[in-house]
């Protein structure tokens, strides 16, 4: 559906819209609130990066959107709209019809994400044959075309091969091609480059950008690597302890980080030319809090240098006119200054 969208429709129908999504996981020690009241949206042709450290709930968020949560997890959402269709309370049948067809997902570990006992060709064509009721030949043709599109040479030969016969980078390309078989509107990528070499990373990211430009898909890219974010993101959402603490365009979040956590994150990156050799890298002291049980106030307050007694109450939502939003008690200007 690389439709020619008029500018107005681009803005009014996001490809993916999520409002007030929460994920709770029941464990022996109580309920873990992995994702708490998360909202975001992505327009066609746009890339949203959800960034945060391990355990912040970003992977859970992506799985929740696709309804691929593990058995003990429960999701709740006010709105979960893909291409206009609301999936928040939809039946399993409806969701299944959209999965792979309107929305697709690629994962972190391409070796384990592909079935070792089936050929590449089988795994790629079955999506198309199921959703589009195509014949084996038609599906095969599309698979060959897509493999070529993602930069895999001798595509026809590859179809008969098994996953273990390909290198990591190739496997990830196969995953991308497989995800695009039915021309989805939304592609969710959960740490797609984390398991790859740095050079391959760059190639895969460029591939994603090219595909986006050509096909107009919306991409939600989950990562912990700020470098990746810098390369591909149009919009950024920073997650901490299950909540989105800051969101905005890449320029806004990188240029004028408002939330103390975002600032801390950016300080951790060494910048050639600015960070003195042998100098200290920024750190954020402390560890991520447990997400079990009731949580009050700002979850970052134990590690925040600007924490005040006020932070024990839920931080308000602040935003400016440009669409940059964050949750913090601090006034806009009070926190600026000596930090950067």
């Amino acid at each position, binding site marked *: 559906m690389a439709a020619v969208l008029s500018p107005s429709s681009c803005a009014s129908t996001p490809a993916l819209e999520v409002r007030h999504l929460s994920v709770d996981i029941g464990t022996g020690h109580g309920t873990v609130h992995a994702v708490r009241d998360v909202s975001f949206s992505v327009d066609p042709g746009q890339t949203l990066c959800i960034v945060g450290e391990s355990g912040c709930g970003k992977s859970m968020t992506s799985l929740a959107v696709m309804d691929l949560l593990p058995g003990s997890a429960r999701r709740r959402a006010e709105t979960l709209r893909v291409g206009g269709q609301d999936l928040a309370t939809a039946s399993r049948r409806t969701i299944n019809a959209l999965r792979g067809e309107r929305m697709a997902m690629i994962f972190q570990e391409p070796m384990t994400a592909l079935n070792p006992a089936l050929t590449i060709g089988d795994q790629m064509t079955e999506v198309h044959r199921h959703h589009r009721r195509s014949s084996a030949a038609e599906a095969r043709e599309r698979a060959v075309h897509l493999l070529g599109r993602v930069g895999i040479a001798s595509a026809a030969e590859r179809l008969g091969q098994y996953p273990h016969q390909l290198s990591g980078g190739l496997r990830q390309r196969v995953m991308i091609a497989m995800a695009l078989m039915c021309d989805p509107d939304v592609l969710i990528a959960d740490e797609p480059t984390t398991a790859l070499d740095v050079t391959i990373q760059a190639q895969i990211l460029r591939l994603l950008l090219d595909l986006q430009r050509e096909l107009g898909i919306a991409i939600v890219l989950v990562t912990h690597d700020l470098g990746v974010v810098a390369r591909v993101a149009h919009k950024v959402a920073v997650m901490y302890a299950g909540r989105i603490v800051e969101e905005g365009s890449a320029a806004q979040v990188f240029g004028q980080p408002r939330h103390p956590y975002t600032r801390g994150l950016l300080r951790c990156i060494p910048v050639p030319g600015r960070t003195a050799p042998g100098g200290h890298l920024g750190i954020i002291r402390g560890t991520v809090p447990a997400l079990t049980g009731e949580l009050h106030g700002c979850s970052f307050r134990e590690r925040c*240098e600007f924490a005040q007694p006020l932070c024990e109450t839920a931080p308000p939502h602040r935003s400016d006119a440009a669409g940059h939003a964050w949750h913090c008690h601090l006034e806009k200007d009070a926190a600026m200054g000596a930090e950067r």
Partner: protein
Amino acid sequence: MAAVVPSSSTPPVAAEPAVPPTLSRRRQLWRRACANRPFMFGLGLLALIVLLALAVPLFYPHDPYAQDLTQRTVPPVWYARGTWEHVLGTDALGRDYLARLLHGGRVSLLISLSVVLISGSIGTTLGVLAGYFSGKVDLGITFLITSFLAMPSILIALVIVSMVGSSLTVVILVLGLLMWIRFAVVTRTATQQIRALDYVAAAQAVGASRWRIVFGEVLPNVMPQVIVVATLEAASAIMVEAALSFLGLGVQPPTPSWGLMIAEARSYMFFSFWLIAIPGISLGLLALAINLVGDGLRDLFAAGSRN
């Protein structure tokens, strides 16, 4: 559960979630054992059977060998013709069935215990030797294991028993000499794994002799798995003995064995079905109890080692 720590002038420290006090390993194991219901059920059932078999013949008046041809095939007490004098009725020779059942139970327990002791000793020894010393010793023992596995053991057992003459002792010896394989396989693998662990290297570095290591480090750690295999082989031994006795090549009459009781009752099966049902179900219950205990132990030890 994240504690609410008010921020103050002290540097912010992450709050630790409250951790329950750690119980000793043994308490944890016991806790988990109690939670495993099939295991507790099996344990209870086994205890009951052992108790009945051991204690009751002492004060239950009837002699399992005493024949009374005037009281042949009397049905159990819940039938119309039954009497309380013979609670489970009598067999074709007028012998009290409950007495035979209980004594047969003793035979089964005795056999399973002895066979497991013999085969366990042989198998564990061979397995540990093979796993620890590797090389030619391992090759030889593995070949022995493969050959024994390839043998149709029930057939061989039948042949030996028929040649040597069947009796309780012969059955125990034969089964003991044939059923050591699983012990050997399991202990061999376990020993290999343990040998590769760091603390064995540490013991070697300190200069501990080989035998010291085997007895001090390897055996104690191999024991849990040996016990699990022992319970499963015990159940197996009971079934094999029952089959042998059923075919007439195990325990000889008049000694009561559950398999033998079933064989003896076969011709009367159509009219007095309880004659085979009672020992058959008893066999099933005993094997069930032992299997449940074995499975439970396996789960317990597996989970314990993971911690």
